[in-house]
């Protein structure tokens, strides 16, 4: 019965030899850890004006270069809002008419979500923006890993087909 036969083949979980998996391991380590030098730029002072309204930040996507001395000027336009920056774990609160200033050195690279930190209504937990500090290495390494995972998964069945 074909059914039974298929079952037997499936038992082999990872059909390729260990050298194959070692290779995949080395390549994935490369993707994850290879240092990618970001194009060097002289750190500058950068002031970004952000408006907070229910339930969005405008602009919602900010970009700075690594090392910049960043000042986020938070202006609320309706009710009291806040801004909490993931990764840096810093926050400020602003009410309409009183700009709040968040000053920090953008020393951590990557893309960080920032979110409202003061309850401002129903969708408050989803009031989200992004701060990009240099190129988004995590995303690119992630994409690289996705491609590698796809190739490795398919390729690992080569010898499986050879057996059959």
């Amino acid at each position, binding site marked *: 019965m074909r059914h039974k036969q298929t079952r037997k083949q499936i038992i082999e979980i990872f059909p390729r030899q260990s050298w194959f998996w070692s290779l995949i391991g080395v390549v994935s380590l490369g993707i994850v850890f290879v240092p990618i030098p970001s194009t060097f730029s002289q750190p500058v002072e950068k002031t970004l004006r952000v408006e907070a309204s229910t339930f969005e930040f405008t602009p919602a996507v900010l970009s700075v270069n690594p090392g910049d001395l960043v000042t986020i000027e938070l202006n609320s*336009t*309706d009710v009291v809002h806040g801004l909490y920056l993931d990764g840096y774990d810093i926050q400020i609160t602003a009410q309409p008419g009183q700009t709040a200033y968040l000053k920090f050195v953008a020393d951590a690279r990557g893309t960080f979500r920032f979110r409202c930190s003061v309850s401002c209504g129903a969708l408050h937990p989803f009031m989200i923006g992004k701060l990009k500090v240099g190129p988004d290495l995590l995303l690119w390494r992630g994409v690289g890993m996705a491609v590698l995972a796809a190739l490795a998964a398919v390729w690992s069945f080569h010898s499986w087909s050879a057996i059959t």
Partner: protein
Amino acid sequence: MATRRIRAEWIARMLVLVLVFGLSAMALASRWINRSQGIDVHARMPEAGGWSPTILNVDVGEPLNLRLISDDVVHGFAVGQSNQPPVDILPGKVAEVSLTFDDPGTYTFFCTRWCGPNHWRMRGTIEVNGPLDIPETSDPPPYLTLGIDLDSPHEVPVDLVRRPSAKRGAALDFDISEEDYLTHDHYLSLSPYDTWLAVKGLPEGSQLSDSEIWDIVAWRWASNTTSEAISTGEELYAQNCAACHGQTGKGNGVFARLVEGDTPADSSSDFGHKIVAPTDFTDPIHMLGAAPARLHGKILRGGMGTGMPSWGQIFTEDQIWAIVDYLWTFQFLNTNKE
């Protein structure tokens, strides 16, 4: 065997009943007991109803215990014409306040955190009942005694070359006789432009340039305030005025955009009536023609249909004057005495 099972079944049923309904019942019961500990005052955005209840009653000398609860965004609570610091009401947290009033009368409580374009409408009253010893008489505001029509136009034809500076004015060491210009009433009733004209008309004044005379006016204005008043005014302005008039006084606060560009019909929807753009305090043509008593009156009475709230029930006399003093800093440099 069967009886043991039946007994177990009954134990299980009791356990489930106690556990399942007990918790909910306990919650509701303690809620009911909790009610006696104070009056729940809910705060909602004005569009959603504002304060609830809006009228509170208490007897003189009796504590008024309030449990302040926000149902949406951050609000604040304060009683008008008092110097007590406001209490923030954070959503989903109960803020407890105990108030005791020494004098009978009607007090206004209001929201102290911007909670939308209609934030300033979020007010309620506290009726304090008690024997009224002396019928309350308060002095009429200076704009009434001086006969200033708050709604009359007061633009003046000025063209400043530079911003007047109190420091430069003081350095000029110009002697103006006390009886004419240094009395408080005089200061209240004359606009900077009136004073400028008067100084220009003096024999000593004719030897000064127009800008120098403005410096003298600035110095004159600075000598009528203190740095404490200005910092109080600055704080009050930031909390209560900047959202419309702008942090730089330019009349471009975050809510001012509700009038900009839109047709009046559209802009009225947020405020419930037609509004006009907030005053630009940096505009000399508008500001230098206004006497301090006029500014005081506008803050006290409000804009009567312009969208400018009335602050008479909210600020103390000193607080209004502190704001007036601060407003002049948008025109005059180095207003602080130091």
